[in-house]
């Protein structure tokens, strides 16, 4: 669906933000992009959305170069949710906010409202049609931003740190929503600093460091076999403890639930149950 071939980009001459980046995103994939602040994660998503154009290399979407596409063209296929959702809200009601995108591409008002209602229902905000967006909680605003993206029926959803500033309950609710959307076939690119989300939710992880891709593969392998601290990441608790327990026969697990199960299984083996 999406292909980067040796893409480089810089905002200022001789100061590359993204260097020689190649990657593919297949339909329906759920991918996390992680790395230090300033490693090029957000620029990567801006390149996908054609908000900035490569200085070198090519970006293909469905086999076509995105060079000729404006951000509005990409927005018909790809939804984008900002880290601070307030920055993408400018209407007085939630339904107007969500219907804005469909109206911009010439859909009739009745159909746009219908699509907006469906999108609000998908994110669990049915009943909030007339709510004032700025009056919603952080978690609700984030779901409203997702609804705005979904109203355009995208095939890929990009989310930049969507759970930062949310409490753990809102975060869990939001991640369940993403799971549900992924199961329905939507491809997702999630930028996150939360290593526990990575370990528990996302099968494929891309690690960015100094504008280049330094890892692209299974999240479990990332934590099991790589020294992630050198890339500014932190091992989740379960990973750190798993590594220390492995010489004692406890199998590796990157998640707390998995580690509890492995520890109990080891103990049953030890006492011959």
């Amino acid at each position, binding site marked *: 669906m999406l292909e980067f071939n040796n893409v480089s980009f810089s905002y200022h001459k001789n100061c590359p933000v993204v260097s020689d980046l190649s990657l593919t995103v297949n339909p329906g994939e759920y991918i996390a992009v992680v790395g230090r*602040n300033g490693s090029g994660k957000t620029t990567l998503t801006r390149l996908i959305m054609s908000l900035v154009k490569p200085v070198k290399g090519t970006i293909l979407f469905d086999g076509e170069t995105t060079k000729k596409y404006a951000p509005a063209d990409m927005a018909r296929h790809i939804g984008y949710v900002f880290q601070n959702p307030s920055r993408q809200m400018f209407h007085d009601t939630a339904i107007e906010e969500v219907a804005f995108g469909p109206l911009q591409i010439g859909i009739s008002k009745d159909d746009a409202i219908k699509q907006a209602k469906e999108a609000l229902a998908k994110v669990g905000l049915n009943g909030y049609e007339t709510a004032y967006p700025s009056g919603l909680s952080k978690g609700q605003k984030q779901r409203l931003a997702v609804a705005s993206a979904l109203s355009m029926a995208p095939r890929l959803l990009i989310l930049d740190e969507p759970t930062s*500033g949310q409490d753990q*309950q809102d975060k869990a609710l939001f991640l369940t929503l993403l799971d549900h959307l992924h199961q329905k076939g939507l491809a997702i690119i999630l930028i996150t600093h939360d290593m526990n989300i990575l370990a528990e939710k996302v099968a494929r992880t891309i690690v960015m460091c100094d504008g280049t891709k330094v890892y692209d593969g299974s999240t479990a392998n990332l934590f099991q076999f790589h020294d992630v601290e050198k890339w*500014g990441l932190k091992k989740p608790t379960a990973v750190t403890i798993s590594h220390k327990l492995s010489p004692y026969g406890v199998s590796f697990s990157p998640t707390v639930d998995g580690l509890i199960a492995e520890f109990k299984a080891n*103990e049953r083996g030890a006492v011959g149950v």
Partner: protein
Amino acid sequence: MSEIVISGLSYTYPKAAKPSLQNVSLKIDSGAFAALAGLNGSGKTSLCLAIAGAVPHYYGGAMAGQVYTGEVKTTESGICEIANIVGLVLEDYESQLVTLTVEEEVAFGLENRGVEQSEINRRVKEALQMVGLSGKEKQQTAALSGGQKQRLAIASVLATKPQILVLDEPTSALDPEGASELYELLHRLNQDHKLTILVVEHDLSLALPFASQFILLADGSVEKAGSPAEVLQYMGSKQHYACSLPPLWQLKLGLEPEFSSFGDWKTDDEAANELIHCLEKLEAGKSA
């Protein structure tokens, strides 16, 4: 001695339909490292603002009860007097950066207090050194990374020599490395400079290794306050807080029903060592 004493504090913002704080009573000792937890909307930010005197001095509204910071009663003192005792770093820390360069930013609060230039120079240097921003004096604040801006906001309040440092969700914009570094800094300020620290944090695993006190707010009231272990045990007993527990304590409470009671883990190393000991005992039992 208690540094922050709050008794019967209730507060309603102007035009708000319901109070943000309801009958909050709380003590935070001098030299404590306290973490304030609770769901969004539970009153954490309002409590921070009340401790810093911005509630009610800046926001207005209706307030009942008393807040003492140090020896000062906030309702009977000006916000400037309180600012000499309490340094506040807002969640939106960029909104409190107002000058062009790093050194101007740290000097700003001191200039407003009429501090002599030689003393300003000394304190700017000292504060930037404390937060690891030495050498960036002439740099434009706009060119700093999110983590550096957050540390600059901290340096600006440290330069005013507060007794109490209050930080509202200080790691929300930071990468894992930056978040760990910030907590190491807060730990040093707490241990070496004897600052009383109050930090609002959703990710309690960051505060757990350093905190001496956890406070859990719900619907504007204190639901539980005490040692980190006491509060985490309490949260573990409530289904709706299950996902708010640090992974370390999810592991502890998940294993304890089948194994002996473990210690009050604060770090991954403590947990790993105790679990290894547990496995060795099991292995020894098998051999016997």
